[in-house]
């Protein structure tokens, strides 16, 4: 089976029912995508399928065939981080940082859909992502900042 991950083709031998998360982590060593529950409840495993954020712990491989998979490792372009990544660093969001990959992917998807989201839109887009360290207020701040950075960049 061929998977298109971060613009690179990967061939994997696997049961089409196997969940994408475990293929990414255990077969391809793309461990930026995290396991937090395996039950669709925490968002740590969020990746983009085409442009939609999905829970890779629930998504069978078969659903990812023929689609573009983007993981946290694929956001950086030619040494340049995505504005959401930059903003997470600028705002100094992280405590343990374990939730960050999933949060960032969910936020990237939101900004693609809605370049300048309102606070309530950010909250609802990220509602499925848990941060046990409780950094939510900083994540909100970072997403706002990322929106400003991205728009600034477009106008330049």
């Amino acid at each position, binding site marked *: 089976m061929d998977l298109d991950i971060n613009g690179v083709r990967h061939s994997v031998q*696997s*049961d089409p029912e*196997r969940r994408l998360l*475990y293929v990414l*982590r*255990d077969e391809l*060593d*793309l*461990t*930026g*995508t*995290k*396991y*937090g*529950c*395996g*039950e669709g*409840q*925490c968002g*740590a495993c969020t990746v983009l399928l085409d442009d939609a954020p999905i829970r890779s712990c629930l998504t069978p491989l078969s659903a990812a065939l023929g689609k573009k998979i983007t*993981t*946290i*490792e694929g*956001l*950086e372009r030619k040494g340049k*981080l995505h504005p959401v*990544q930059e903003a*997470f*660093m600028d705002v*100094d969001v*992280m*405590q*343990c*940082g*374990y*939730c*960050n*990959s999933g949060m*960032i992917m969910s936020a990237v998807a939101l900004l693609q859909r809605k370049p300048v989201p309102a606070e309530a839109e*950010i*909250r*609802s887009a*990220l*509602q499925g*992502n*848990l*941060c*046990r*360290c*409780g*950094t*939510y*207020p*900083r994540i*909100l701040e970072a997403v706002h900042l990322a929106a400003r950075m991205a728009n600034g960049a477009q106008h330049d």
Partner: protein
Amino acid sequence: MIDFEHPEFEQPGFERAGFEPERYELHAAPLYSFVPDRRDFLKLLGGGLVVLVALPGAKAQESGSGRGGVGVPQDIGAWLHIAESGAITVYTGKVEMGQNIRTSLTQAVAEELRTTPTQISLVMGDTMLTPYDRGTFGSMTTPQMAPQLHRAAAAAREMLLDLAAEEWQQGKSALTIADGAVRNTSGATLSFGELTKGRKLTKTIAADALVTSASEWTIAGRDLKKVNARAIVTGQEKFISDIRLPGMMYGRVVRPPAFQASLASADAQAARAIPGVVAVRDGDFVGVACDDSSKLDRAAAAIKTEWKTVPQTNSRELYGYLKSHPSRGGTAVQWQPVDSGKSIEASYNVAYIAHTPLEPRAAVARWKDDQLTVWTGTQVPFGVRSELAQAFGVPEDHVRVIASATGSGYGGKHTGECAVEAARLAKAAGKPVKLMWTREEEFTWAYFRPAGVIDIRSGALDDGTITSWQFHNYNSGNAAIRSPYNIPNQIAEFHAADSPLRQGSYRGLAASANHFARESHMDELAHAIGMEPAAFRLKNASDPRLRAVLEASTERFRWGSAKTRPNRGFGLMAGFDKGGYISCCVEITVNNGKVTVDRVVQAFECGAIVNPEQLRNLITGSIVQGLGGALTEAIEFDNGRITNPHLAQYRVPRFADVPQIEVVMLDRKDLPPAGAGETPIVGVAPAIANAIFDAAGKRIRSMPLRLS
């Protein structure tokens, strides 16, 4: 006072993950521990300059038998090495759990060495390379480790200045040190590397070396972004569950259906028939290791097990159970009459809650002959090393525990059960094994914050003077059990009980339960004598630091403003624990029996502030986490089973639950810094309980606070 950091685990039969006693004898602590010669040890570091921080004699023994460091000198708290290249490396047994000590300790060293934080690396929590440490808990890193590193780095600075003075034949007082180099009056410089080249210098310092006082800090006390931030946002940071070793297999434990169950029979034939699968049965331990993680479910399910279970209690009967099951040596409660003033009594309950770290426990274990290395997320690497040594009957110096980055712990990763299980599987497989607990396992087989019952009897005069305070805590613990208010002859006692669930440390320990009960009761007492709750507290608070946080939070909150809507409520609390003073005010709305927290204002003071933004982040995070224990989190159980072991059934705070949060930090540069990872969590629960009473006239005496 009893130290309740490490309550004994209360559930017999689980402690050793059920290893068969004949095969996994508990070995007593070794009679002797043969510490390598100091010089041998220093050889490991190579040339350059080394500063060792000597602990006062008794300190190294603090942790009791069997947990002392083996393989490294035991009387040393930390060491700092400046290599011949000029590279600065600091070794500490403390562990980074998201509380950001990697960054703040780096700052402490940079401050004293007058250099940039990027020149410094920290080796943390590796039992082979770092000094023995009891563990990263109790908010002791900032008060203890930061000063030690300040001292070590200050001593290194003086040594560098001495070397430069000798080199230039100049008085030391005329030399300055900045940006990783020493400079003399004529402007010549010598870098740290130039000064340490070809040297082999060692210095042991005591606790009194000269350090820069907090008011002169230029690096510490400022904000510094997390040193590994880029790795985290790019997914490159390797957490325990991300580690992969060559030839590594994946593990899964076959769990019993209930606590205290024993294995009657196990048939692993079908599992062993699957290629690439190793099945292990050892006493009550059953598990599999697979060469491919896709086989885990199938292999584990292929093992047929039968278990003998024993009847056990449930969460509905918990509070009565705790009061009626004192543990051996428990003290009886004796109530005193209240002689003067108005007297009231009330009983408060606190549920078991789970730490729910976003990364469940994980470990990677590798054996080489009889040498074991385990990477695992733990706050107590040396304790886990002891557990492993005991479980496998090997000397401690054959075991290396490396506590690398983990998806936090909040007091929940003190023990090594996952490490022991991974090591058992790796031993059978003859290959390294990674074991990641599932979310359900984390909810079931870790340990819980103790549940508790707190009974209070109190009395107060009409003018607000408290005349009696009797406070009895069953099972939940001792932390912050004494009232910080000015109450002569207060009685505050802890009564240990036989906990039906395995319990242990948690962020803030019993300080959450004790503050909840005390500050709820302070409100009740204020209302009983018809006094305004903030005024009542101030009337009884003589400690100026307690008054200061209370005044700071009420002022920012505008305490005393009129309610804008009838279903709004205001509540407040104040308190003290582990060197930190706290006061919290909240505003809530009650709608159809549902509580929404709209605004939280929390004032906190923990001496001198080392890194203001990180402190703010930690306090904010504690408030958010505290909301879970306050409003929604409770472990439910029945007959040895956890009945809500999923995030869909056990709600932890999410974005929608986050109120407007305002943190007021009081900086006392004249006081030594205390830790802040724990105490800020204790504020919201009592403040919300008091606000619910204000809004709905209903007093809720049970955590989590549920209106219906």
